[in-house]
């Protein structure tokens, strides 16, 4: 039993914190977020050079095989820096889907490219009616000879605009909400019949609505087995949930630190706000929530690397519930303690708060996971 960071994790942490302090100030981040493609291609190449794109991938494809606890360190830094580059889409979701379900040929072809920064991915699995239910897939494939024709739409697909390839969940048999009959297709971005509506998200990222009109794809484009993608999608989304819990820890740590600093310098009634006990205790509540959230993020990521399926679900859902609670305990409180300045666009705290709030709405919100947590042992 040892919960200290390993040497590798410490090194990774150092690399990341140097990168953030040298090249990722809040002003730089805001510029990237608002202009052009919404992030920096140069940063992405730096990520590749620093080895960050290879963290979860097996050595034979050029990765480091650091697992979820390795990703946890990267995601924590992504949270601290409010990083806008498409790491979650490309590495955590897309890359891991290919590693988990892809054929040997697909893995050998795609993962090394990804690690070198030459391939960016997006994962399209959300639909208008699906909410958080992963089996709720109605985008249809009709089979004709060796081809499939896809018709339907996907919503809130992160980084689709800049992705080279998009992985799509498709209903290949059965009815909407059936767990059987879902398949994964790998599409080239420019595939004929795909159109997109691109937009900014409220927390400074980019996403798209995707429309598929008789898009022809060959049998080779399937990742994994036909009709059998559901358990893979579920596990990848679980991994991504644990990853964003680590991101949330980074966000929360910044909200807490910045709020504590502000309490020390802001004066009212001729004394610093930090003299007021009512405010001290709120800051302590934020600190306690931060530590408890860090604990659950550790647990969720450790369990992904080596726990039973039910242990994984309990730990991940617990962490997601806590993430949801931290929206108010940490996020709303940080804004309140900053007073009027907290609700200005200029202040970084407002943007950390927005990210934290949106993290709750990814991959199942607090209530979704509270229910899931309680159901594990009943099944």
């Amino acid at each position, binding site marked *: *039993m*040892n919960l200290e960071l390993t040497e590798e994790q410490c090194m990774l942490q150092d690399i990341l914190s140097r990168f953030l302090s040298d090249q990722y100030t809040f002003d730089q981040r805001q510029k990237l977020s608002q202009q052009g493609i919404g992030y920096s291609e140069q940063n992405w190449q730096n990520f590749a050079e620093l080895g960050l794109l290879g963290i979860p991938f097996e050595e034979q494809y050029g990765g480091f095989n650091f697992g979820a*606890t390795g990703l946890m360190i990267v995601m924590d830094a992504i949270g601290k820096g409010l990083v806008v580059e498409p790491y979650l889409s490309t590495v955590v979701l897309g890359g891991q889907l290919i590693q988990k379900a892809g054929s040997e040929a697909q893995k050998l072809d795609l993962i090394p490219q990804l690690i070198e920064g030459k391939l960016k991915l997006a994962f399209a699995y959300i639909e208008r009616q699906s909410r958080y239910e992963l089996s709720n897939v109605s985008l249809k494939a009709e089979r004709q000879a060796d081809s499939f024709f896809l018709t339907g739409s996907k919503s809130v697909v992160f980084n689709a605009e800049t992705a080279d390839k998009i992985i799509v969940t498709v209903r290949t048999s059965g009815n909407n909400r059936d767990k059987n009959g879902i398949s994964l297709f790998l599409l080239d971005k420019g595939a004929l019949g795909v159109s997109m509506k691109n937009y900014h998200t409220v927390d400074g990222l980019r996403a798209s609505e995707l429309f598929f009109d008789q898009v022809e794809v060959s049998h080779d484009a399937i990742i994994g087995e036909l009709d059998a993608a559901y358990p893979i999608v579920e596990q990848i989304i679980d991994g991504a949930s644990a990853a964003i819990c680590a991101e949330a820890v980074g966000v929360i740590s910044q909200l807490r630190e910045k709020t504590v600093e502000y309490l020390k310098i802001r004066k009212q009634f001729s004394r610093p706000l930090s003299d007021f006990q009512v405010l*001290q205790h709120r800051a302590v509540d934020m600190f*306690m929530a931060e530590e408890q959230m860090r*604990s659950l993020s*550790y647990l969720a990521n450790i369990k992904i690397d080596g726990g039973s399926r039910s242990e994984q679900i309990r730990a991940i859902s617990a962490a997601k519930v806590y993430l949801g609670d931290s929206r108010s305990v940490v996020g709303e409180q940080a804004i309140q303690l900053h007073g009027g300045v907290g609700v200005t666009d200029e202040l970084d705290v407002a943007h950390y708060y927005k990210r934290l709030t949106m993290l709750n709405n990814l991959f199942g919100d607090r209530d979704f996971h509270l229910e899931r947590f309680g159901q594990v042992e009943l099944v």
Partner: protein
Amino acid sequence: MDLNYTPEEKSFRQEVQIFLKENYPAYLQDKVAKGVALKKEDYVHWQKTLYEKGWVAPGWPVEYGGTGWTPVQKYIFEEECGAANCLRLTSFGLVMIAPVLLKYGTEEQKQKYLPGILSSDTWWTQGYSEPNAGSDLASLQTRAEKQGDYYLINGSKTWTTHGHYGDMMFALVRTSKEDKKQKGISFILFDMKSSGVSVEPIITIDGLHVVNQVFLDDVKVPIENLIGVEGEGWSIAKYLLQHERTNIAQVPRSKKQIERLKLLAEKEIHNGKSLLLDPFFRAKISEVEVELMALEMTSLRALSKVSVGESSSMTSSLLKVKGTEVQQKITALLMEAVGYFSLPYFNGVLMDGWQDGTPVGPEEAAFLAPHYFDWRKTSIYGGSNEIQKNIVAKVVLGL
């Protein structure tokens, strides 16, 4: 990062399990499981058993009777004791005064007091709080005047747990008036049978007698009963507060209580179905479980720090606050689970269980509301949760 235990730790866990299975009596297991009040002989019985095994004082140095266990082994022992519904030994002797004697006591004092603490032949009580000194403990007013070879003590101590069983008391007393209230406080021991000591019961919110007020009226205490230097009692008191806090969160006990809550809720019927299947009640259980899961992991992180030789004192306030919040929420849910049967009150049943074999409602029900009320104390004692937050604000956040 690794949550797995070593083969040695696993076999240690097994050894503890076997020992508890063979030596922890069923009647005590039953009492603790149901929440029946524990009597002095219950504590003494279990402490003697552990004493004979050599496991009574894991926190002590080996030469004085400690076990020599690693921090992880101590944690495993606590976990297994929680899982087996073991009663918690009273802490006043073993984990409060003993470490003080070991650090500040003279050789004579150690020889005189430590053996009785270990064997449970001497019962210790704590003389800290006073009617006008609670959270602001340093404002205590009980006076000790030096007169030749003894101190003359006058004043009153309160919330004295097991004061009515007590043989000895360790107390903070004022030996001089100084510019700062923390100065001039001394740490002293005295015999509860001394003339001038009287113990009056305080009946708590659950209707039971556990705590007392102790009146000290011209009590003569030999000067050799002073611990450390006169006037330096406050730093001793602070040392005592820092000692042995890894189990402060009471995670193993709370896990057991969650298990109990689920068993109880499963049997209760709500709208034609098991209460455990009711989404609202289920959600409330899950919320507590999530907090407890986080707390367990935070405890393990603190333990891991201790194991690699780093201090974890910064988290002990967190563990105390979150630990007591979890415990209190569980007592509330246990009470809610039995609905109407939380109402009937039987003082004798709280003391001795259902002797006539015909409980009103579920057998455990009569204990649940009194427990819920009694458990409010946990966020008040040991430095109230608000005091803990003051500590974190100052020490950790620098506010």
